[in-house]
C-alpha cells in the first residue's frame, strides 16, 4: 500500500523567496504525523502544495498514491482539509455549508457531521456569522472530517479551541487513527503534538530540520529548573546529578537545564529550605534554536515566510 503522503524534492519558490526547499517526506498510513515549526517555516506552503492549491517549482508529491497535481480531484476525494485560516459565508449555517460540501462529494447524507458537532459542542444550525471564533473553528473541523476521510490534513486545528474541546478533539484524532485513518497535523504547539503524534517532522526556514518519532524528540527537549533557597546552596551537588547541565548559581538561586526526570533534583533540594521551584518547558522555537542549530546548517538568509 502506498504511503499516505510521499514527497520528493518538493520545492516552492515565491519569486526570489523560498517557501519550501527539497522536501523529502513520507507519512505512513494509519499514523498521526506532526508537522511542526515556527510561523513562516513552510508548513502551510507544504500543505497547499499537497492539495494543489500551489504548484511546485520543483519536485513532486503523492497523496494516497496519487499525483497531487495531475490527480488532484481524486486526491481531494479522499482527503479532508482544514486550512490554517479560512472564511465562511456568514449568512450560511454550518449545516448548509456541510450539506453543500456533502453534495459536492456525492454523499446522500451528512456523514458524521452531527456526531462531530455534538462532541465538539457547536450548533450547526446557527448562521456562521453569529458564531465565536472558536465555534467557527469547530465548524471548520466538522467540514474537514464529516466525510471520514482516509487522510485528514489539518493546519493548526486547535486554534481558538478551549482546553476541554482541545482534549476532545485530540481524543477524536486517536480514535481516527485506531480506525486506520491518517492524520497530518500541522502545528506550532508542541504540547498537542506530544500528546497525539506518532512521528514528527520539524521544518524550519523552508527546510526539513528533522524527522523522528515523538518519543525521541521529547528526549531531546530540556526543561529549565529554577530553585530558590532560603540560603546559598552549593550548586556542584546539583551539577553532579544525571541529566543536569548548563547550571548557574547566584545568591540563593540556582538555574539548571534538565533533560530527564526532575525527581533527583527535588530530592536533593528537599535537604535544604526551598522557597520556590519553577520548571519551564522551552517553547518549540527554543527547541529548534537550542538543539537543531547545532545539527543543521543555518537557513539561507532572506528565506521566505509562508506566502509571498
Amino acid at each position, binding site marked *: 500500500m502506498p504511503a499516505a503522503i510521499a514527497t520528493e524534492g518538493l520545492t516552492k519558490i515565491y519569486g526570489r523567496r523560498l517557501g519550501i526547499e527539497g522536501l523529502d517526506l513520507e507519512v505512513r498510513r494509519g499514523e498521526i504525523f506532526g508537522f511542526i515549526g515556527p510561523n513562516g517555516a513552510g508548513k502551510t506552503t507544504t500543505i497547499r502544495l499537497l492539495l494543489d492549491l500551489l504548484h511546485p517549482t520543483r519536485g513532486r508529491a503523492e497523496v494516497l498514491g496519487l499525483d497531487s497535481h495531475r490527480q488532484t480531484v481524486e486526491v*481531494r476525494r479522499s482527503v479532508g*482539509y482544514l486550512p490554517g485560516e479560512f472564511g465562511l459565508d456568514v449568512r450560511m449555517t454550518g449545516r448548509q455549508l456541510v450539506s453543500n460540501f456533502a453534495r459536492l462529494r456525492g454523499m446522500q447524507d451528512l456523514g458524521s457531521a452531527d456526531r462531530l458537532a455534538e462532541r465538539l459542542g457547536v450548533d450547526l444550525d446557527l448562521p456562521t456569522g453569529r458564531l465565536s471564533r472558536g465555534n467557527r473553528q469547530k465548524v471548520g473541523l466538522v467540514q474537514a472530517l464529516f466525510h471520514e476521510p482516509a487522510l485528514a490534513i489539518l493546519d493548526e486545528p486547535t486554534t481558538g479551541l478551549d482546553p476541554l474541546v482541545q482534549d476532545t478533539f485530540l481524543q477524536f484524532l486517536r480514535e481516527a487513527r485506531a480506525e486506520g485513518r491518517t492524520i497530518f497535523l500541522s502545528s506550532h504547539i508542541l504540547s498537542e503534538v506530544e500528546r497525539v503524534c506518532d512521528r514528527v517532522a520539524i521544518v524550519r526556514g523552508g527546510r526539513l530540520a528533522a524527522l523522528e518519532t515523538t518519543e525521541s524528540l521529547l528526549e531531546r527537549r530540556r526543561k529549565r529548573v529554577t530553585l530558590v533557597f532560603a540560603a546559598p546552596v552549593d550548586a556542584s551537588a546539583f551539577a553532579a546529578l544525571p541529566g543536569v547541565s548548563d547550571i548557574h548559581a547566584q545568591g540563593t538561586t540556582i538555574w539548571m537545564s534538565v533533560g530527564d526526570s526532575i525527581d533527583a533534583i527535588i530530592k536533593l533540594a528537599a535537604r535544604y529550605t526551598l522557597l520556590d521551584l519553577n520548571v519551564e518547558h522551552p517553547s518549540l522555537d527554543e527547541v529548534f534554536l537550542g538543539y537543531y542549530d547545532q545539527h543543521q546548517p543555518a537557513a539561507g538568509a532572506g528565506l521566505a515566510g509562508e506566502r509571498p
Partner: protein
Amino acid sequence: MTGTGHWWLLTRQQLRSRVRSLVIWGVALGGLGALYVALFPSMSEFLRQYLEQASQQMQQFMGQLQDSMTIEGWMEIEFYTSIVPIALPFMVIPVGARAVSGGEERKTLDLLLSNPLPRWHVIASALGTMAGALACVLGIAWILTTIAVLAAGVGLAPGRLAAALFVLWVFCLLFGALALLVSTWVRRSFLAVVIPAVVLVAMYVVGNLAQVSKSAEPIRVFSLFYHLGHPLKGDFPWTAVLLMLAAICVIGGAAVAVFDRRDIYT
C-alpha cells in the same frame, strides 16, 4: 457525481443564496420598464404637441424626439440603451470578481477547493451564476413590463421586448465574464470590479458622445452600446449578439486557463 454535476450544483447553491437580491433587481428594473410604459401615452402626446408647434428647423434638430413618439422608440431610448445596459452589468460584475480573487480575499476558496472538484468548475459555476441571475432579473423585468404594456394598451410586442432583453442578457454577461477573467488574473477583487466598470462607462460615454459630436462618430464602433441594434423595432443585432457570445466563450476559456495555472493564496 458527474463532471457536470459539480458546477451545476455550485451554480444552484450560488443562485439560491442570491434569490432576494435577484428579486429586488428584477422588480426594480421591471418597475422602471412599467413606469416608462405607463408614461408613454402622456409623454408621446406632449412631444407631438411640442413638435407641431416647433419651427421646421427645430423639428429637424429634434429629430430623435420624433422617434420617441412610438412605444418602440420611446422604450429604446429610455430603457433599452440607457438605464438597463449601464445598471445591470453592476449586478454581475461583483459576482465575477468574487469568484476567484474575492474568494481568496474572503478565504473561502480554500474550503471550496478542498472538495473533489476541478478548478474549471469554479469558473463555469461563476458564469452559470451570472447567466442564471441575469435571466431571472430580465425575466421578472419582462413580466412586469409586459403587464404594463397590456394594461396601458400601447401595443409593444412581447416578443420584441423579449428579444431586446435577450440582447441585454448577452451584453451584461460579457462584462461579468470580463470581471471573472480579471479576477483570475489579478489578486484584487477591487480591480476585478473597477476594470470592467471603467470599460463599461467608457463605452457608454463614447456611445453617447458619438450621438452628439460628429468628430466622435468614427470611434463609436468601439462602444458595444452602438452595436445593441434596434430589436424593439424588429431589427435584431444578430452579428453583435453572436460576436458577444463568442467573446464570452473566449473570455471564459481564458479564465479557465489562467486559473488552472496559477497559485491560490489566502
